[in-house]
């Protein structure tokens, strides 16, 4: 293994706000360092590239110990939406882009962007459901081919 990282392939498997952002930041950060990067969305991560859903990603407020917020309160109607709104507001002040804008920006950096075929089939989706930046719907084997020679980061 060489001293520097030359290539990373990052998997986003979750559909919550805090489950999606880390993978995006890592991919964008890799590109900013001149590291070749692929971004692969699977399971609920598909929401981040789904045309109808990518603007409605919520913070997980139930059973999320890291939030330091009572689960019983987190489950009340409207709480998830309100906390998501608050979180988005804080991120906007730090100039952290929204998920749709971030994904588009990452595509502009030249990162590869793919959806997981198994998940697409499972959820009955098709290429048309995704944003234009998604290059292809690929299998796990094809993902490994693309990831070859680099690191794989699962989020």
């Amino acid at each position: 293994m060489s001293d520097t990282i030359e290539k990373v392939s990052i998997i986003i498997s979750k559909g919550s706000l805090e489950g999606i952002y880390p993978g995006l930041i890592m991919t964008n950060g890799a590109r900013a360092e001149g590291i070749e990067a692929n971004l692969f969305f699977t399971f609920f991560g598909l929401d981040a590239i789904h045309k109808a859903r990518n603007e409605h990603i919520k913070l997980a407020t139930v059973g999320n110990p890291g939030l330091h917020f009572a689960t019983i309160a987190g489950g009340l109607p409207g709480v998830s939406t309100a906390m998501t709104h608050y979180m988005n507001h804080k991120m906007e002040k730090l100039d952290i882009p929204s998920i749709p804008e971030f994904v588009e920006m990452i595509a502009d950096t030249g990162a590869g962007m793919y959806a997981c075929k198994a998940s697409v089939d499972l959820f009955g989706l098709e290429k048309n459901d995704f944003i234009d930046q998604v290059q292809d719907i690929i299998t796990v084997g094809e993902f490994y081919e693309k990831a070859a020679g680099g690191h794989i980061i699962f989020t």
Partner: protein
Amino acid sequence: MSTVTIAATDVELNDEGFFVQPEQWTEDMVPELAHREGIDELTDAHWQVIRFMRSEFLSKGTGPTVRVLGKTSGVSIKELYQLFPKGPAKVAAKIAGIPKPRGCI
């Protein structure tokens, strides 16, 4: 840390290749610095970015991250990565003789 001769002047670079003393930089050094980064043809767009990085550093004390660069330099993210494939903010900072910008976006 090492002393390197650029445009017939001795300058100090850190291990990553960034200027330790930004004051040592002059615009004459740009072609040679760019060449060290694998860029042999400097277009107007390259110069625009390099000068912008330098002026942001001088006025704000730090160079901009890629996102800020894309929003305020007049050059889009897409074009930035075409001009500087190995990382726009990082490479342009080296060529502009400023420290590496710190930021996660």
